[in-house]
């Protein structure tokens, strides 16, 4: 392959890359910090999921350039991602429900 990237899709500057890296490090420190603070136990899962989603979005938007690139690329990334989430949720409902029912039947 020897084609130049399209100039229309301007990539972020080095400064933006560094700021995103700093944000990723801060979010990771927050994740680990929240894990160790007992006060966060009741809301640990939602807080961790939000922090993880923020890191995910930062990498995808700025490092994978989906924020600036054509929407076709966003669709090419987003469609399989949505499919993966649907598979994940479907499998969780299907098997967690089956295992829980089997456990309840065994206990009963």
């Amino acid at each position, binding site marked *: *392959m020897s084609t130049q990237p399209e100039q229309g899709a301007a990539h972020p500057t080095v400064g933006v890359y560094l700021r995103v*890296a700093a944000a990723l490090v801060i979010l*990771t420190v927050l994740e680990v910090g929240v894990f160790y603070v007992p006060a966060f136990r009741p809301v640990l899962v939602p807080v*961790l999921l939000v922090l993880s989603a923020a890191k995910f979005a930062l990498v995808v938007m700025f*490092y*994978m350039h989906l924020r600036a690139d054509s929407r076709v690329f966003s669709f090419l990334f987003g469609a399989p991602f949505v499919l*993966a989430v649907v598979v*994940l949720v479907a499998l969780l409902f299907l098997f967690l429900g089956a*295992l829980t029912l089997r456990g309840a039947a065994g206990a009963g």
Partner: protein
Amino acid sequence: LFGSLISTYLVYKGRSVVGPYPRDVLNIPFTSISTFDLLMSSLMMVLALAAVQRGDMKWGKIWLFSTALLGTVFLGGQVIEFTDFVHKGLTLQTNLFGCTFFVLTGTHGAHVTVGVLWLFTLWVRALQGKLGPAHAMTVEITGLYWHFVDVVWIVIFTVVYLIQ
């Protein structure tokens, strides 16, 4: 692939009949450093791409090598972690946690290995003078693969290590 593997891990989470259990083996400080390492490798990757695009091959080579090196360090961390787990009695056959954990993180590690080999190949081509601004798209595609590996780890770190 990773959606299915993560789902499988979650479905069997907490259903191991015998130990070791996640709380017995998972080393959060160690894995946090591995996570930091992989996040920084993604930064090196975008810096490599930016350098290649502007024709600065000196820094392009440095960032490409740094990315591959950080990827290698991550793999080294995974080898240490797996060895530690085996010494603590957790193998692929021990329990549901061992089986789903090793398959999930091992598959991710295999993808990182492919990425590291790909990056070292690009670096060698750059050293030979066969990689320049005209090949920026090649570096971009390598970068997309590397960032994909990174975002998968972001999910694994949260789901497997932090949500116990």
